[in-house]
């Protein structure tokens, strides 16, 4: 029979081998559709707003579609619709790296370029991936912030998004290996909770963490929904001042909690820049200036020049750490 061992689960690549022409003219009127994990999520709204701005600069056509639930199967239906509508580029934040793969490959065979952003699809079914920061950088950064807030020792817990979230899981992996290093020997990760990127669920999970672990010092939430919910819970409870909240969040959402002292510091890249960069990468792909191979370069408007890294990854840059001193300089 066919078993895991002999099925050869990993599959051959669909990478296009056409040569890139860095000097090809930038196409106008490129139709690019954004398919975030889920509509009506403030974080992805900011992301795609950057894409919209970039496409206006590039004289392309911007479009936003997506499901109301963060499920892979509904994304597939939307990819199919986009294929039918003969888009030029699809920018996708994949809910499940593999589930969207067959459809994305169908899109590619129909000549559509795929730019994964924020959350990667499997490598062999997209052209490039816009990574907000290196996984290593984020994972280590999270641990460092937690360590600072905990004073170098004590219990910490992670409040993540969904159990399947690709990014968060990758960052948590890095965080775990980082914690194993001797300089963090006194930090103890007691639990990883999942708020499913649902505000209310995250709120309750934060509540549960504080009840279960009386000695908890820091909640690290590597997701914007989670950190806001955790901060809100702590700020309205008797734990305020005793528990530190940190992680990845948007300045606008977190401003109130930084001001009232619940949150000392947190980090994030500018989400709008991800969408912005994705649009430039998409148009460059469509114009034939790049194909997604390592080492190719393209221009990304106000963000400057970028080089494609290994596996078609394009890294946006290091995240910004926000605290009470600088938070008022940002508005997103």
């Amino acid at each position, binding site marked *: 029979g066919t078993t*895991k061992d002999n099925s050869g689960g990993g599959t051959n690549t669909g990478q296009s081998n056409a040569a890139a022409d860095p000097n090809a003219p930038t196409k106008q009127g490129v139709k690019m559709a954004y398919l975030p994990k889920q509509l009506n999520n403030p974080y992805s709204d900011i992301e795609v707003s950057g894409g919209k701005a970039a496409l206006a600069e590039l004289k392309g056509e911007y479009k936003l579609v997506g499901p109301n639930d963060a499920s892979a199967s509904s994304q597939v239906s939307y990819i199919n619709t986009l*294929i039918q509508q003969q888009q030029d580029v699809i920018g996708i934040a994949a809910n*499940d790296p593999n589930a969207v793969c067959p459809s994305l490959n169908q899109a590619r065979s129909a000549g559509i370029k795929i730019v994964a952003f924020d959350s990667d699809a499997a490598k062999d079914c997209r052209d490039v991936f816009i990574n907000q920061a290196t996984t290593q950088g984020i994972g280590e950064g999270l641990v460092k912030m937690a360590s600072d807030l905990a004073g170098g020792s004590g219990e910490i817990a992670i409040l993540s998004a969904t159990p399947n979230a690709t990014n968060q899981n990758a960052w948590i992996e890095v965080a775990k290996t980082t914690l194993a290093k001797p300089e963090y020997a006194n930090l103890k990760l007691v639990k990883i909770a999942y708020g499913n990127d649902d505000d209310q669920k995250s709120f309750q999970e934060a509540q549960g963490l504080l009840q279960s672990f009386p000695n908890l010092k820091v909640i690290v939430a590597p997701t914007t929904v989670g950190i806001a919910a955790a901060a809100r819970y702590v700020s309205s409870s008797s734990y305020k001042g005793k528990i530190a909240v940190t992680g990845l969040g948007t300045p606008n959402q977190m401003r109130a909690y930084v001001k009232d002292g619940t949150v000392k510091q947190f980090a994030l890249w500018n989400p709008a820049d991800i969408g912005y960069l994705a649009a430039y990468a998409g148009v460059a792909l469509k114009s034939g200036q790049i194909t997604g191979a390592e080492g190719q370069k393209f221009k990304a408007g106000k963000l400057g020049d970028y080089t494609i890294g290994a596996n078609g990854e394009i890294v946006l840059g290091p995240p910004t750490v926000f605290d009470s001193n600088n938070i008022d300089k940002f508005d997103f």
Partner: protein
Amino acid sequence: MFDKAWHRLASWDAAVIVVTVLVVVIASGAVDNFGTGRNFTFLMLDLLPIALVALPMTFIIVTGEIDLSVASTLGLTSAVMGSMWNTGMSIESIIPLCIVLGGVLGALNGFFVTVLKLPSLAVTIGTLALYRGLAFVVLGDNAVADFPRSYTSWVTGTIGVIPNVLVPLLVLALVFGVVLHATPIGRAVFAAGASEQAARFAGVRTGRLKFWLYVVSGAVAGLAGVLWTLRYSSARADNGFGLELAVVAAVLLGGVSIFGGKGTLPGVLAGVVLLATLQNALRLQDVSNEALNVVTGVLLIVSVLLPNIVTRSRAALRRRRKVTS
């Protein structure tokens, strides 16, 4: 005049079929990219799980019961399929095991409904939570993705524009249709739904019948779970979340009475196609998901409201005629 009103009611499903055909024709003309072969493929792939699960659901609703746990059964079989694959079992033995598992989950519903005689709505709300919860227990954080190419590509593959999976669906639909409309079992299903007591007095073993319907419903949901997993090459605990409402909506839209005793399988298939086509066409027109929700809900209510209004206004008319004559 009695029989006319009656016929009007009974042919609600015929009306749905006509409306479905109309919608397909109009969409082909008016919606860009709708009438292409590839879109047909996508449409069929999207409606496959709903159509599949709707087949036994039709039987169950015709007997006057309901099964809300189907989507969770789908999710649980998908999760189990993933974890079995991880243990290194062969896919050839996993697939039948998953279908059997679905049957067992259905049997538990059947036990509660027919042996303990509990209301099916309450029972299947309970198992809806239970099975979905167990799916998460089984697979937790993981998504199993590395299913064999030969299988996943068969599920997404086509013969011309006809998806491969349409073949088993059509075969099953034919079998379910024949059983419902042209066999003693079908007769018993209608009788049990229209009047359980009268059916028992005519020698129908209603408890046993319903029990097996739940088993079949579970098994088909298990099959749907397998196909779902292979189609998205992703076994996840949340697969098919919320599908039960879409299935019930399609069945009711197809003219099946929620009180049991009435309905046809062609009508249900038309209901499934109508819902899926509307969604597909409206989405191609860039109508948002949210508007689709409203359309689905309104359609559902109208589908039951309309025949009621028709029969009642006919009855009122008749009364008036009688008084004047």
